[in-house]
């Protein structure tokens, strides 16, 4: 093979390429297209369309990527594992919620945490906001009263749950408890649905 044809792809490049392909595929999903359409204030979803979007988000997985662990808890034991510098996103987030912010109980599992976050979708008081981040990533924020059973809460629990869904990746990217809407500091052009 001529030397000029040899292209070296390290694991990082491959990972990026796969992420781009996954993102492109997920952007084609109809519910994510409906979410994108909500950036236009003239477009309102029909109740059926909104239900399809909510059903889609209710099944969304938590982001599967590894992310940096909060520096203050690296090396600490969390649910029988020693936290490294990077962990799967759901572990990194849940460990922060339990060990640092202490708004979830010590023994809440990742499956339970995800169930708690997904449960907001069925809440009659659910509020939904569509917004673009500074680098034009599209999100839906879900805000609902915190109805997690008291035994599953930590000592610093708050009144509301905020869950962030990425319409670019089709995943839940985070979820935490807030005491009020002012904490969330959404971009000015966020649209509440």
């Amino acid at each position: 093979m001529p030397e000029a044809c040899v292209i070296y792809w390290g694991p990082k490049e491959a990972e990026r390429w796969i992420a781009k392909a996954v993102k492109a595929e997920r952007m084609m999903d109809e519910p994510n297209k409906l979410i994108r359409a909500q950036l236009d204030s003239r477009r309102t979803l029909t109740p059926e369309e909104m239900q399809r979007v909510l059903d889609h988000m209710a099944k969304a997985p938590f982001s599967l990527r590894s992310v940096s662990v909060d520096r203050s808890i690296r090396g600490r034991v969390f649910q029988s594992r020693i936290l490294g510098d990077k962990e799967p996103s759901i572990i990194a987030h849940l460990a922060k919620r339990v060990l640092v912010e202490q708004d979830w109980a010590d023994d809440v599992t990742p499956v339970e945490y995800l169930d708690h976050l997904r449960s907001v979708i069925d809440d009659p008081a659910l509020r939904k906001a569509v917004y673009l981040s500074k680098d034009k990533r599209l999100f839906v924020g879900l805000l609902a009263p915190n109805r997690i059973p008291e035994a599953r809460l930590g000592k610093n629990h708050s009144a509301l749950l905020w869950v962030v869904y990425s319409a670019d990746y089709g995943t839940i990217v985070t979820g935490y408890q807030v005491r009020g809407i002012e904490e969330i500091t959404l971009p000015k052009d966020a649209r509440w649905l």
Partner: protein
Amino acid sequence: MRMNEYTSKDFDNFAEILIGRWEFALELEPRWDSLDDEERIAHTEDWPVNNGILMDLEDYADSHELTEGQQVQWSKLKDIMAKHRKTLEEMGYRVLPLKEERGRAVA
């Protein structure tokens, strides 16, 4: 609404945590563009938790006399925020300004 009483020990703990989170975000800045998109999202979309922590610290500082150690930590945090808020905002973090600046913005 915070559901439990916020103590002096909470102030010590969360002031230290918030300073650490600001310092960590600033450490990321030089390599921000090389980070994976989803990792950047994990950082920026999780940041508003820290806005809640800041509000609790402010409420406590407004209604209690801080110890000498607490005053040092509180000043350190406010100093980092004043110097570096724009840097974090440029990275895409949605940073809640300090209460005095929020008041000014409204006025």
